[in-house]
């Protein structure tokens, strides 16, 4: 029948295995066993049997969880040579950044730029960050909830200066330019403005042409063929229409969108619908043309403001307050915080649970 010391050794080994290399665990366990057996001998005297002596020896040596914690806390707190606290901080920041990717970079879950590979990369980075967070909490053998809470709330508090420095917005709160891409994106915004200007001329020309045309033969090629118009105006995507069999990307005639031009800071604009035939197209132009012309000046002004802000940033202006943007970052960070704290709790309590379980088993023994 195993003695109390045997049980102790098993539990200590089990606990130490959570964070130390096997050879080191063996060394510690062997030394502890040597100490305990010597201690038992010293406690043996008339009136004190072997079991009582073993109990006294264990009492003096310390419960396995306590001894294991002393070794673990001093021996294996580093991950890749770095204290877990730095891993926890870095992983929390990475998770917050990934979660706020849309708002911190204007590119993200709603995929306004259509770069799904980028979102996949962010998803993977975020998942790796959360996994590493759990691992680093376990490596530290304690909860880092105060740190995580501090980092989260710190970002919330700093979201306004942070975002007004990092993102250069226009009038819209859902797109802008990150400070990192200023020189690249200023050229793209200029391109967007040029395309919006060309589109305005196209709509004016189209309205004039349709007011005189008796049939499709009186129209120029870019008013007849949507693909020609799309290529000439660089609109996105290929214009189409919703017919009886669903969306039909080719065929029909180009008609302006009633919403003017949905323009992106990366140079793309969405501005064309289609109609099935000449009569439908003429009706579409009469209805949508004036609406598009009415919407375009404000849209051009918004994009011009974006360009002006970007140039000011390039010339040294530091902050561009956009309350909506910082509010989104603050809200998203607060949404993520419970998940980070849950991971911390699960990871840290999984170590603690093992310790408690071990202690119970020892008492039973």
């Amino acid at each position, binding site marked *: 029948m195993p003695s109390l010391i045997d049980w102790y050794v098993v539990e200590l080994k089990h606990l130490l295995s959570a964070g130390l290399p096997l050879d080191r665990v063996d060394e*510690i366990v*062997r*030394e*502890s066993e040597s*100490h305990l057996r*010597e201690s038992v001998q010293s406690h043996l005297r008339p009136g004190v049997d072997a079991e009582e002596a073993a109990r006294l020896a264990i009492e003096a040596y310390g419960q396995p969880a306590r*001894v294991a914690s*002393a*070794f673990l806390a001093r021996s294996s707190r580093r991950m890749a040579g770095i204290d877990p606290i730095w891993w926890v901080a870095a992983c929390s920041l990475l998770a917050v950044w990934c979660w706020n990717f849309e708002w911190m970079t204007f590119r993200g879950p709603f995929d306004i730029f259509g770069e799904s590979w980028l979102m996949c990369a962010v998803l993977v980075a975020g998942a790796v960050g959360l996994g590493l967070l759990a691992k680093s909490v376990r490596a530290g053998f304690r909860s880092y909830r105060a740190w995580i809470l501090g980092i989260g709330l710190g970002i919330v508090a700093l979201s306004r200066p942070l975002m007004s420095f990092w993102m250069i917005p226009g009038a819209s709160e859902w797109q802008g330019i990150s400070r990192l891409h200023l020189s690249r994106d200023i050229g793209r915004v200029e391109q967007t403005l040029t395309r919006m200007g060309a589109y305005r001329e196209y709509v004016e020309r189209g309205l004039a042409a349709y007011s005189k045309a008796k049939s499709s033969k009186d129209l120029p090629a870019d008013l007849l063929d949507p693909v020609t118009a799309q290529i000439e105006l660089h609109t996105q995507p290929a214009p189409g229409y919703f017919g009886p069999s669903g969306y039909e990307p080719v065929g029909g005639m180009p008609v302006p969108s009633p919403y003017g031009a949905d323009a992106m800071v990366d140079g793309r604009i969405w501005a064309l619908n289609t109609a099935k035939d000449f009569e439908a197209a003429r009706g579409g132009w009469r209805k949508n043309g004036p609406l598009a012309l009415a919407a375009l000046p404000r849209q051009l002004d918004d994009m011009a403001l974006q360009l002006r802000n970007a140039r000011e940033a390039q010339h040294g202006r530091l902050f561009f307050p956009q309350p909506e943007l910082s509010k989104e970052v603050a809200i998203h960070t607060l949404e993520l915080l419970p998940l980070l704290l849950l991971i911390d709790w699960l990871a840290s309590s999984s170590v603690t649970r093992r310790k408690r379980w071990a202690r119970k088993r020892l008492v039973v023994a």
Partner: protein
Amino acid sequence: MAFRGDIKALILGTLQGEPLHGYEIVRRIRETGGAGRLSEGQIYPYLHDLEQEGHLTAEWQTDTGAAPRRVYQLTPAGRAELSRHRLAWEQFVAGVGSLLSGNAKTAEGGNV
């Protein structure tokens, strides 16, 4: 009672006379009361720290007929470290001693 931070100094001091195994080191430190609230098992990590820092060497002694024991011995670096601890301790004792004796004189002289 010593502070917990002195455990390493106590270990080095215990080993200055002769190599000792872990049980004996711990027993002697416990006798001084220098371990404070640390249990015996919690002293071992300090021993291992000192070994990793190069202040001690350790090897298993299996040829004595008794149960195997891990015996620790001071290295030259460990002796230098012990000297440093001793100097720091002497300075501490001298500083506190002079302060206490100075206070005593003030009280005796009635110079308030």
